[in-house]
């Protein structure tokens, strides 16, 4: 029983960042119809920015975190303006190839800048864990969950209660009609890609200090983000949120009770099962996307 509780708690801690990754990717896919292969690299970028700020320049941890996220937003905006803006109207294969190229270039740049040796990032939280009965959890992970939930809440607020959010939702539903109603599609795309990238960078900036930062860290994160998006239904923000927590839970329980060596395979096995029964994912809208 204690073990089950501990697994559940671990899944909750992990689920928050998974949800962040998933929401970022699903937003970009839903609104821009772009399969964003650079998502994992934005995650790695967030972690490395934390390393650069906290370990190299000595910026306070709590100041560094929003800075790292802001830098992720800027990099996302730059990618959209430099690459995707020119590709609007190009077919999906061309866009995908360019994004794959950007992914490889970004990862190679990380390797060049930071070398292959993993970097660890100090955090200001006590090393002793928070103990509740028989289960325990590290303070830094509690912090990660709280910030992740706050960011998810902010994203919901932005999408549902602001003018920009309304324009984004309109673009999501029907790009042409939204454009006819005066929505600046270009601006919406830049904002969407920047927001999605910022969320990925936030996940990296939060998890970098929990684990370590290394150049290929984005690959597994991107694979999981794709899994979450497919699980929750492409373009569905609630789907990505819940999908993130489901994936974390399946990984934890699968590793705990079936086979720990295949922990990272559990989520993908789950996707196969879900797609067999619900080909559009758990929470997809009725109409087809893409």
């Amino acid at each position, binding site marked *: 029983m204690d073990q089950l509780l501990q697994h559940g708690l671990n899944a909750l*801690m992990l689920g928050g960042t998974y949800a962040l990754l998933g929401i970022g990717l699903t937003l970009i896919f839903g609104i821009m119809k772009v399969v964003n292969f650079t998502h994992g690299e934005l995650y790695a970028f967030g972690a490395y920015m934390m390393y650069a700020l906290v370990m190299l320049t000595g910026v306070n941890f709590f100041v560094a975190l929003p800075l790292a996220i802001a830098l992720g937003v800027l990099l996302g905006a730059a990618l959209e303006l430099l690459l995707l803006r020119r590709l609007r109207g190009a077919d999906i294969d061309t866009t995908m190839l360019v994004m794959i190229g950007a992914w490889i270039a970004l990862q190679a740049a990380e390797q060049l800048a930071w070398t292959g040796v993993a970097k660890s990032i100090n955090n200001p939280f006590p090393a002793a864990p928070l103990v509740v009965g028989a289960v325990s959890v590290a303070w830094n992970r509690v912090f990660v969950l709280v910030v992740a939930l706050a960011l998810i809440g902010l994203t919901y607020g932005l999408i549902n209660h602001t003018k920009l959010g309304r324009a984004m939702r309109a673009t999501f539903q029907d790009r042409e009609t939204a454009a006819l109603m005066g929505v600046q599609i270009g601006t919406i795309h830049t904002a969407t890609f920047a927001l999605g990238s910022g969320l990925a960078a936030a996940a990296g900036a939060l998890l970098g200090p929990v684990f370590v930062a290394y150049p290929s860290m984005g690959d597994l994160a991107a694979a999981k983000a794709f899994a979450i998006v497919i699980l929750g239904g492409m373009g569905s923000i609630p789907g990505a949120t819940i999908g993130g927590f489901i994936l974390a839970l399946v990984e934890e329980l699968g590793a705990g009770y079936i086979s720990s060596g295949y922990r990272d395979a559990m989520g993908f096995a789950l996707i196969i099962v879900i797609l067999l029964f619900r080909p559009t994912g758990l929470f997809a809208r009725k109409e087809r996307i893409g």
Partner: protein
Amino acid sequence: MKSIFKPVWKSVAAAFAASLAVGTAVAQEPIKIGVTQPLTGAFAASGNYVAQGAKMAEDHINAAGGVLGRKIQLVIEDNKSNPTEAVATAEKLIGRDKVPVMMGAWSSTLTLAIMPKLMEYQVPMLVETSSSGKITTSGNPYIFRISPTSEMEARAFTPMVKGFNIKKADFLATNNDFGLGASQEFSQMLKKQGVQVGVMETMDPKATDFSAQLAKIKASGGDTLFVTTAVEQITLILKQAKEQQVRARIITTGGSNSPDQLIQQPGDAANGSFPLVFFTPWFPEAVKNADIARKFVAEWNARTHNVGGLTEGFRGYDGIHTIVEAIKQAGKPDAAAIQKAMWNVKVKGINGDIAFIKQGPAGKESAQNVPSVYVVKIDNGKVIKN
């Protein structure tokens, strides 16, 4: 006429001069030694340290006049911590650089991936890091291993079981030839010693979150946890074990557990753990060839290499010295001659005296060195004798 012939003569003269230049270059051309290490990817830290140690040996040997009147030149390739890439580096080193001997490939999985290529091209490889028993028992006569097998580590640990008073042991190992081999050898040895074996957990070599495994290990409740993986994952495991309040004593095996790197990490997670190592740079006087060890440590520090890399780097240094000794005895930089000479090599290394014994099926034995193994303790941010 004159104007037509002039350029022809010029080019003939140039070709003649070039051929002369090539002739002298051959006589002085260095002897190439191939090195394949994970310079990037999951094992990047360790692979780079081994490469640094190897380069120190290269400089040391060349400063002393080289071998057979020629300098040596290391051709170092990055196998990217990936078995497919490791095979590609072997192809490149043997095919394009024509090296007569190689060193590599850091980790059992990478070494095992390369082994069929050695058979194919008949080029010997000195294995500096790899502990899976399979490497020397599968009948590959091109393998010369200087690092200990998991079985040797387990045997060296046997007399310490009583001292540690182990009653029940759990295992956490990386899910590859290295980790699974170690868990198997240590659990068999412990069972023979009457120790109860609890859970045997595995993890993906790239995994960073071990919460599920640690929760299971905590529930198993053994007094000792044997962890086998590279230092990158050990760092995270020690940290997460503290977070999940796993109270078992942690012993890390495999020799790629750099205690200094563990101590450098934030927090005190490494304290109280016992790394099993093959070189003790903290007390070089304790090793067999103390003068060589001391010199190596001084030189490593003079080059301002990371102190945490000493327990990896020494293997690159020992490996290149062993290869060069074999080239010297062979009398020529030829793969078959080096393979033969390797069997007679006796080198005073940092780890101890290096010499090879036969392992594996008769007629096609692999060569295995019998290295020294030590268990140390991390206490209060320092490495102490156990």
